């Protein structure tokens, strides 16, 4: 192939810049590389264009960019007539020239590793490597540099992509001289991520753990400045890097917002290397004010020709396939500052193709160029050196055959710091035409078609049936070689010849191996096929989108979020869960998100009327124990993870939010798992489907924290590898609590005393909040002994255990719970699944209730939560709880346990209009939620649901047809794939977002 030969790196004759301090061999030979590039169309910076100008470079730097032809004395002129010049691209997010990361040490086989394996005076966590200074590890790599240059890059900011704190980067040019010369700057920026990478240490094992670790380290680093007792090279490095730009690789839009929570808390400014799905929540992302580094990882179309296979692909993924290429344009239109990166591409070589897709989908060429030059340069603080061509900047630029983003443009030369790399000859002879080919005296016609450098050679057939013979060719400088085999010939004819006036001539071997003379002589032109051009123009138009942009992007997302309405529910049986009890044929008015009136024959007053005749109205169901809408559940690597916050990992896109609205659920406590005695801080949310994670949070709910007892925390069912972490028995569990609360009290004293040496500890802060009644416990518990134990710990340390959750043996100690003041949130009827639930009974709720415990029924299960009303109904069956009280088990009582009963849990004037209209008696198996309101907004109704289903079907079909069209047009496709929906329970453990369960 023509192209391949020429893309061989052509290193300039200029000797590589030798560092001044280096000795040299032979005579002194440091030439100044003085060049003038004339008659070029120069884009010196995005939006700055000279149609015909001169670029002068010397000693690897730009001397001038001027209009017209100006060749200074001593400069070599290179005529770039018809060629285009651009600043070379800048990759802010690369790892060029750096070695692969390695683990700090060997982790004992599958055993928990509590501390870092890294030897030396470094920090405790192996995933934090601020001390990694990329400049110490950088080496020039010709092969890799060549690949980068081919794509048009001249500068890469390299960091080692490993760990949560990845240290600092080095900015280098892609020249191939000594490292001493190509390094433009070191300690350019600091790099963070959520992923602990090669760290074999257990902590953090979850997303919220990574976030908590970052928080605490910000605090520790600050503390470190003012103390002298500890030498910690990691914290020292952390502090040193604090003044640099901070890059954070986040992944999808929700993960971006999670990082922004840290940024807000510590007054930081992150630059996000984001996921490419920002179009889903542009407003929220714009509101962060952060700059972005966008990937170009647009998915291939799905091969959906098998209707069964196609079902694997969700509407969300189909929509993303259609909309992802439009993401850079959307981000640009929103006015967000962004750079583009090759990071995230499956193969780097896809870069230009993907970029063109983004341009076709609406990104302006100027914005694209800016995102590849000036913006990344500025992010790195290298704007004086790279990103534009101006006096004094690095002579790093591209020479292209056409405007750089044109489909047919080729990068001909890539100059790095004045070092020339020729990718293609500046001039490629156009060979198209008809020739007379004469081989050994026999003549025939040879047709050459196609553009310069991309020609196809052919011996045409005699008639329509004869397809002729393809001729393989290779141009090498002034020489051409051909090979072909005509029909009936015993073998290939192979020819090689040099250029002549009107063709080529030389020697070759015929099919029998005899040496022969040959020549080809141009006899005429071939007609260009104009049809193709038209088609291309058609292709350049952005395609019409058939998908909708909904919140969230899944099938059941909303195109427009539900609005607050004035609603009158008429003539329903109203279960107030208040003193009024159950009111027959009663009206309830909803206004401004609140319940505004309850009574008979309320005036309509412009409200939308929901006919409640024959139906039942209850307060929205409240699930005290839920793990839906979370990306992570357990940070189970240590006995206490009080510092982790579930509000950091709310997943507002979980379709189970919608499904549970259809089961009448309106508020849930999203709990940490039960992998350790002291778990993490809860997120209490309203099921505001379509909102952002932040908007789901129940704003007036107090802080909660998950505790756990029994088999899970002592790792009874985790297998034989887990025999190290304390505690391994119930005896140890008590000591964990005693120890932590004792420390929390001491911590309080130190805190009150203040002083420079005081180190704020987020873990102990959370525990101190418990002691100060600012945070409440909900404790996973089963057996009576451990329940009493924890109440004892509470009494010794002067706090109340607010809620025991699961509490399957609560019936045995209900009297003590009442005395202590603990509530119970239990399953209706689960048992027998492990040893500690062997004495669980379905009468548990009834017995606790009879003793005066505030009882709730919870789900801990995405499926069961859809019918919690029925689980409450079972309590009528098991133990004869009255129906009115049974309903409170899933409405008012959990609200009380969560200290939100001033807002939700019952139907009372002034309370939040979180309401459910049921088709039948709300405790009945036959009851279906017909309308579910949160804050007076209708988030679910059977009617709307029907429409959504219709929309899903239609839109899936439209996108599938479009995918099939794309396949038919030759687009690359991928096999149908479906995301794994993980169902998280208390016991769900995860390593980096869930590799396996226990």
């Amino acid at each position, binding site marked *: 192939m023509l192209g391949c030969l020429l893309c061989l790196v052509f290193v300039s004759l200029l000797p590589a810049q030798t560092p001044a301090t280096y000795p040299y061999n032979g005579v002194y030979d440091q030439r100044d590389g003085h060049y003038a590039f004339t008659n070029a169309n120069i884009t010196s910076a995005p939006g700055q264009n000279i149609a015909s100008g001169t670029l002068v470079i010397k000693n690897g730097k730009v001397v001038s960019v001027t209009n017209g032809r100006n060749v200074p004395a001593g400069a070599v002129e290179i005529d770039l007539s018809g060629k285009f010049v651009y600043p070379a691209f800048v990759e802010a997010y690369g790892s060029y020239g750096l070695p692969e990361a390695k683990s700090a040490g060997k982790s004992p086989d599958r055993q928990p590793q509590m501390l870092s394996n890294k030897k030396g005076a470094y920090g405790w966590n192996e995933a934090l490597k601020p001390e990694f200074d990329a400049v110490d590890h950088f080496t020039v790599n010709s092969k890799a540099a060549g690949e980068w240059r081919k794509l048009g890059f001249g500068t890469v900011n390299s960091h080692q992509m490993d760990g949560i704190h990845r240290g600092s980067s080095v900015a280098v040019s892609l020249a191939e001289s000594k490292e001493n010369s190509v390094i433009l700057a070191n300690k350019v920026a600091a790099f963070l991520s959520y992923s602990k990478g090669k760290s074999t240490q257990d902590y953090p094992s979850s997303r919220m753990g990574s976030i908590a670790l970052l928080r605490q380290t910000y605090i520790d680093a600050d503390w470190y400045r003012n103390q002298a007792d500890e030498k910690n090279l990691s914290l020292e490095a952390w502090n040193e890097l604090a003044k640099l730009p901070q890059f954070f690789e986040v992944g999808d839009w929700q993960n971006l917002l999670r990082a922004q929570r840290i940024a807000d808390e510590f007054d930081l400014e992150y630059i996000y290397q984001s996921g490419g799905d920002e179009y889903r929540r542009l407003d929220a992302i714009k509101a962060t004010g952060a700059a972005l580094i966008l990937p170009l990882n647009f998915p291939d179309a799905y091969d959906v020709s098998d209707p069964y296979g196609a079902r694997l692909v969700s509407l969300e993924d189909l929509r993303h396939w259609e909309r992802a290429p439009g993401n850079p344009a959307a981000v640009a239109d929103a006015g967000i500052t962004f750079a583009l990166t090759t990071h995230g591409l499956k193969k780097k070589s896809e870069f230009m193709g993907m970029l063109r897709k983004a341009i076709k989908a609406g990104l302006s060429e100027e914005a694209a160029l800016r995102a590849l030059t000036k913006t990344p340069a500025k992010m790195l603080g290298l704007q004086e050196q790279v990103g534009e061509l101006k006096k004094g900047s690095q002579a790093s630029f591209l020479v292209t055959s056409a405007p750089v983003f044109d489909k047919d443009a080729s990068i001909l030369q890539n100059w790095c710091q004045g070092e020339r790399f020729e990718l293609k000859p500046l001039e490629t002879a156009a060979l198209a035409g008809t020739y007379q080919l004469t081989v050994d005296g026999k003549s025939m016609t040879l047709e050459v078609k196609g553009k310069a450098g991309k020609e196809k050679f052919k011996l045409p057939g005699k008639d329509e049936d004869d397809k002729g013979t393809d001729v393989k060719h290779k141009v090498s400088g002034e020489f051409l070689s051909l090979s072909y085999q005509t029909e009936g010939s015993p073998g290939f004819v192979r020819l090689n010849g040099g250029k002549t006036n009107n063709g080529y001539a030389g020697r070759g071997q015929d099919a029998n191996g005899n040496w022969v003379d040959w020549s080809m002589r141009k006899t005429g032109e071939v007609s260009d096929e104009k049809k193709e051009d038209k088609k291309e123009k058609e292709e350049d138009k952005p395609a019409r989108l058939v998908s909708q942009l909904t919140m969230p992007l899944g099938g059941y997302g909303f195109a427009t979020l539900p609005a607050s309405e004035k609603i009158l529910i008429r003539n329903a049986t109203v279960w107030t869960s208040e003193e009024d009890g159950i009111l027959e044929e009663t009206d309830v008015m909803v206004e401004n998100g609140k319940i505004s009136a309850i009574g008979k024959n309320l005036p309509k007053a412009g409200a939308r009327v929901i006919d409640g005749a024959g139906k039942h109205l209850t307060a929205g169901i409240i699930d005290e124990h839920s793990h839906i809408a979370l990306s992570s559940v357990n940070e189970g690597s240590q006995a206490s993870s009080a510092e982790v916050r579930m509000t950091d990992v709310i997943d507002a896109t979980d379709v189970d939010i919608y499904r549970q609205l259809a089961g009448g659920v309106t508020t849930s406590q999203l709990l940490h798992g039960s992998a350790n005695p002291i778990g993490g801080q809860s997120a209490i949310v309203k099921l505001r489907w379509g909102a952002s994670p932040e908007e789901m949070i129940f704003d007036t709910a107090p802080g909660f924290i998950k505790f756990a007892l029994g088999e899970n925390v002592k790792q009874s069912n985790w297998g034989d590898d887990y025999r190290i972490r304390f505690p391994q028995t119930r005896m140890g569990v008590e000591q964990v609590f005693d120890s932590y609360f004792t420390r929390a009290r001491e911590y309080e004293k130190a805190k009150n005393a203040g002083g420079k040496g005081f180190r704020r500890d987020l873990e102990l802060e959370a525990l101190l909040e418990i002691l100060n009644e600012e945070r409440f416990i909900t404790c996973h518990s089963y057996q009576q002994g451990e329940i009493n134990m924890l109440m004892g710990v509470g009494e010794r340390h002067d706090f109340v255990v607010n809620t025991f959750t699961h509490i399957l043996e609560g019936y045995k100690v209900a009297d003590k719970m009442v005395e202590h003041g603990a509530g119970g949130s239990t399953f209706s009827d689960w048992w027998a699944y492990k040893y500690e639930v062997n004495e669980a009974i*379905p009468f548990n709720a009834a017995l606790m209730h009879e003793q005066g415990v505030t009882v709730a029924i919870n789900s801990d299960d995405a499926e069961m939560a859809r019918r919690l009303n029925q689980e409450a109904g079972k309590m009528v069956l098991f133990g*004869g709880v009255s129906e009115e009280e049974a309903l409170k088990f899933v409405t008012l009582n959990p609200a009380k346990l969560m200290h939100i009963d001033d807002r939700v849990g019952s139907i009372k004037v002034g309370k939040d209009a979180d309401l459910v209209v049921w088709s039948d008696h709300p405790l009945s198996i*036959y*009851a279906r939620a017909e309308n579910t309101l949160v804050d007076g907004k209708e988030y679910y109704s059977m009617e709307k649901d029907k429409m959504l289903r219709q929309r899903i079907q239609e839109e899936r079909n439209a996108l599938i047809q479009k995918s099939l069209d794309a396949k038919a047009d030759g687009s690359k496709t991928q096999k149908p794939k479906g995301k794994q929906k993980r169902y998280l329970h208390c016991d769900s453990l995860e390593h980096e977002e869930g590799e396996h369960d226990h």
Partner: protein
Amino acid sequence: MKLKHIYTLTLLLTSLATPSSFMSGRTSLLAQNPTPAPEQSEKIAVSGATLHLGNGQVVENGLVLLEDGKIEYAGSQKDHSPNDYQMIDAAGKHVYPGLIALNTGLGLTEIGAVRSTRDGRETGYLNPHVRTLIAFNTDSQVIPTVRSRGVLLAQSVPQGGRISGKSSIFQLDGWNYEDAVRRTDDGIHLNWPRTVSYSWRERKYSENKDYNKQLNELEAFMLEAKAYCNGEREGDVQLKLAAMCDLLNNDANAYVHVYDAKGIQSAVMLMKEFGIKPVIVGGDESYLVADFLKQEGVSVILGSTQDLPNRADADIDQPFKTPAMLAEAGVSFAISHGGYWEQRNLPFVAGTAVAYGLDYEKAIQALTLDAAKIAGIDQDYGSLENGKSATLIVVGGDLLDMRKSEVEMAFIDGRMIDLDNKQSELYRKFKEKYSRESGR
């Protein structure tokens, strides 16, 4: 505190006044399951109840006569005035055939997380020869809790591998597996290759590339078994191949556990080549191939309705309404729930189907007569019909709705079953604790 005690006392009195099975008169605690009930010695007449016959019919104000463990009569009370019968007045109550729980782990697992109590999953890939029959633990403390909710017969099913082994059908009030079993080795359980597989690395589902290979392996094994079972062989008894003969001769069911539409179709087609009509177990996507199943006369043991849709875009109520869709298409099916202790919720699993469009009596049929037919025990069980086994329950109200679902009496083969269980005992024990405290 005072108030609480009064409250407790009132509730206690209330519950004692109701004929609750949870509150049997016993004061002492039993460490063991209740003693299996003795043979029926007296003729029994249950009168005045609404009879749900199990075959789709309802009889208001009905009468059931039980004699020698059989149903002597089940129908309208009109024109009947039984003498010499122990009379049970069931006016206002509902009578159903004893429920049949298919595809369960009952008797095989006692405590899920405790390995020593798990006997449902043998190691190995092709295990047609292993039998739940002999592993079924009649002394499982789980069984009485399930029985007290009206489930009187259960299929105990092996798991794991491509071929898991043989199930058997048991009545749930036995001394040992020999007297509890009602159909020995009723079928072999096959786990159909999955058409999609999961990649942990990508965390995504995609087409199972090994599907055809796995299918061929299964077919090859069945062909070997067929050759083995047809030939008269001596001297080289092959237990695995021999175990397949009943299935290949249509003397036992082929229970194919399969969830997706393509897999279902493929299972029916392959089994057809061997002259076998499989029973589809699970069948999440059976609604997509309902007409095909109807045409092939293949029955389905549907997995639980109380499940989540398997795809984000699926109708949110798909598992709830699948039974109604199968009924609409005329496919024969039973409703099941999976698990062991969970079986006590089997009535509610059917209730959910009713809430989402399934005819009520059809739902009962899916727990009784149609389940019996699939399991091959409909000669004796599954409906209230003259001459069949007197295996039935008397319920205070609508069995399928938790509000009124209390099972007050149960008969297995005419024996009046003790509905007490460990959980009721513990209930009484702690009622007693608190009543002592309040009396203090």
